[in-house]
Each structure stands twice: as structure tokens, then as C-alpha cells.
């Protein structure tokens, strides 16, 4: 074990050399990517520096309420991201609140479960453990939910005639929507299934890599990674299922009608 090697500002600046090289390349080949590349790199620097400051102060404050507040802000950003990633989203506040509700239900539940039953820091809400864990689970749940909802809404619009044909033949709404919901669930589950299958063979997960780089025994890092992957898988599954089911109910009504009027017009 070599232990933890601290990085200096020069090290980080040096690491950006290749990125700058890419920007130069884009400029000389007139790809038009250099602006986007530099802006997003600058955004990343500012966001991460700020997050570092915020996390440091949250850690040193050690207040459960402040931890909760940060978690809610993260949830809000994730909900906005879910809404933004759908070509057709639910009209009104539903577009935002349904994703937030599904994430709250799944990601928050799983995080609290992991903190109180497995990792058990003292106190259990300790921000040093709670926030990074919540962030990882939230990020993956968010991706799953946005894919699931995007598929559900897109396919429903495309297959409207087929769904209505089943309704007209006397199928209850959940039966009529079943093939579409299956598509939506499959697409929401795909990233986490792929990630689990490829983990360790193709890619070393970022968190595990980070632990190994900071000097932790790889076998310990693997245990942590397994725990995290199970939690992420479970939370994504719950979140996708909850969101797709809720949205399917919202897009039909008690008289078993398809209510595509409750979708907003597509972007683009």
C-alpha cells in the first residue's frame, strides 16, 4: 500500500493539456466543437470546486437538517433533468413531480436502508456517507426513470391506434398498455443491467477506482462496490417501475380511456 497521494494544482492543470490539444485540433479542423468543449470543461471546474466547498462545510457543520436540505436540492436537480430528457413529458406540474416522487420513493428509501442497516455510520445520517451514497443512487435512478418515461410516452403516441384497438375490444387499461409498459421498463432497466454485466471485465467502476487510488485494499473496494451496485440496481428498479406505472395511470383514466391530451407537445 502506497497510501494516498495528494494532488497539486499543477498536476490538475497538466491533466488538462490533452483537452486543450483537442480544442486546438477542433479549431484548426473547423469542427466547431472547441467552444462547447471549453465551456463544459469550465463549468465542470466551477461546479466541482463549489461542490467541494459545500461538502466540506456540510461535513464540518454536521447538521441533519442541512444534510437533508442538500439532499433535497440534489433531488430537485435530478427531477429537472428527468423532465428535460424526455421528448414528450406529462403536461403541467406532473412532468416534474412524477419523476421527483418516484426518485424520492426509491432512491431515498434505498439510501436510508443502506445507511441504517449496512454501512451504519455514527450518526446514521452522517453527511460524509449519506450525500455521496445518495448521489450515486440518485444519478442512476434518474437515468433509468428518464429512459423509461421517454420510451413510455414516445411509444404510446406512436402505438396509439394499437392501444385503442385493444381498449375498443374490451381490454381494461392496464392490459391494453402492457406491451408498451414492457418496452418502457426494459429500456429503463437496460443501463443498470449492462453496467452490472460489464463491471469488472470492461470497466472498473469509478467509485472502486477512486478507493483503490486512495490506497484502499482492492478486496475491500470490491465489497463496497458490490454493495453500491446492489443498492443502485434495487433503487433503479423500484424507481423505474414506480414512475412508469404512475405515468401509465396518469395517461389513462378511470373510464379506461387513453389520455394523450395529458402529454405536452414534443420538443424540437
Amino acid at each position, binding site marked *: 500500500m502506497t497510501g494516498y497521494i495528494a494532488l497539486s494544482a499543477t498536476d490538475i492543470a497538466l491533466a488538462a493539456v490533452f483537452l486543450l490539444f483537442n480544442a486546438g485540433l477542433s479549431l484548426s479542423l473547423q469542427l466547431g466543437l472547441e467552444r462547447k468543449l471549453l465551456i463544459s470543461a469550465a463549468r465542470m471546474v466551477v461546479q466541482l470546486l463549489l461542490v467541494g466547498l459545500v461538502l466540506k462545510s456540510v461535513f464540518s457543520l454536521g447538521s441533519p437538517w442541512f444534510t437533508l436540505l442538500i439532499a433535497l436540492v440534489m433531488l430537485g436537480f435530478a427531477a429537472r433533468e428527468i423532465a428535460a430528457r424526455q421528448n414528450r413529458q406529462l403536461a403541467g406540474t406532473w412532468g416534474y413531480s412524477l419523476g421527483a416522487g418516484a426518485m424520492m420513493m426509491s432512491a431515498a428509501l434505498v439510501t436510508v436502508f443502506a445507511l441504517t442497516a449496512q454501512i451504519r455510520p455514527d450518526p446514521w445520517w452522517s453527511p460524509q456517507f449519506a450525500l455521496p451514497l445518495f448521489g450515486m443512487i440518485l444519478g442512476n435512478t434518474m437515468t433509468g426513470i428518464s429512459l423509461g418515461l421517454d420510451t413510455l410516452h414516445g411509444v404510446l403516441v406512436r402505438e396509439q391506434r394499437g392501444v385503442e*384497438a385493444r381498449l*375498443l*375490444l*374490451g381490454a*381494461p*387499461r392496464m392490459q391494453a398498455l402492457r*406491451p408498451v409498459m414492457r418496452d418502457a421498463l426494459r429500456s429503463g432497466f437496460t443501463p443498470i443491467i449492462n453496467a452490472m454485466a460489464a463491471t469488472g471485465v470492461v470497466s472498473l467502476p469509478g467509485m472502486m477506482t477512486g478507493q483503490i487510488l486512495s490506497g484502499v485494499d482492492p478486496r475491500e473496494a470490491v465489497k463496497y462496490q458490490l454493495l453500491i451496485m446492489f443498492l443502485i440496481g434495487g433503487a433503479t428498479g423500484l424507481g423505474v417501475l414506480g414512475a412508469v406505472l404512475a405515468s401509465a395511470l396518469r395517461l389513462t383514466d378511470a*373510464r*379506461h380511456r387513453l389520455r394523450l391530451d395529458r402529454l405536452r407537445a414534443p420538443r424540437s
Partner: protein
Amino acid sequence: MLRVETLATELIGPVSLTVGAGDCAAITGPSGSGKSLLLRAIADLDPNTGHVRLGQQERDQMPAWQWRQRVAMVPAETGWWADRVRDHFDPAHDPLPMLEALDLAPALDWEVSRLSTGERQRLGLVRALCCAPQAVLLDEPTAALDPAATERVEALIRDVIARGVPAIIVTHDPAQAERLNARRYRMDKGRLTPDPGK
């Protein structure tokens, strides 16, 4: 008997109409006048207000899926959700006699993707009619068919009506209303009026 009272949606109505057992009502009217919307409203596929009754049964007293099993609507463009034709038919009912009457007996083994427009229209009709509905709402059931096929479909519809099933048919062809011995109505800007044409 199918009785429609002051049925209205955001776009059509109020519409009142009664079709007795074994009777047929034919609705004509310009495109966009709300003929298809009226059928959708009766089938409760679009939000609507008003009353619809089948015999003594009030529509809103039963689940919508049960209503649609009794009052079958066949839209002008039928929808399909599986690859094979067979998977769209309720296994509890035998469609073969009706398919034979339309000269489509082997169609159950076909792929939906290779069906012609006319085949889709006729198979969609059989799919609904073979479940023995107690009333039927047909939206231009012969629009994509040649005269010979139209004749077979009309014979099938007459058979169904003769069993005492009330039928509402949207058509562009006044002669079809004549052949089905239907009372004629005209839809214009969402309002239904008896057509003095007959």
C-alpha cells in the same frame, strides 16, 4: 336498443339518437363534421357528458371495458399490436365462419405487416363482430374495399343486424345506407339531424 341522450364532448354535440334492436342508423356528413368523434364518444373512448343506454343498462353504471365488449366500435383505421393476425383475436370466440364469409379464411396465419389496407379493414371488423357484441358502431366499414368485397361485408353486417343488434354506421355512400335499409342522419359541425334524403 341503443339510446343516446344529449351526448357531448368538447368538439361535438349535444347529440341524441335512438337505434332500436335490429335497426341501422347511417350517418353521413362532410369530413371533420364529427362523425368518428360521435362513435368514439358513444364507445366512451373520449371524455364526454350525457347518457348512453343499451337496453336497460346505463353505460356509466358499468366499467368502460365491459361497455365496449357489449357495444363494439370498429374505427376506420384499425389498430394492431402483435406480429401475427391470430394474436389479435379473442380465443374464446371462433372467427372462422365470418372469415370464410369474407373469403379470408387463411388470414389468421398471416403477418400483420403484409396485410393490405382492405384486408386490415375486414379483419378488424371480424375481430370485433365475432365477439358477439350487443350493439355495433362501424366507421366507414367499406371505405378501402372493391365492390365485390363491399358486397360481402354488407351481407355480414346485415346478418348481424338481423340478429337484433342495433348498428350505427358512418358512411360516405348514400347507396350503402339504402342497401343496409338504414335510417339516415346527417352530421354537420358536430350536430346530428335526420336526413330528409330518405
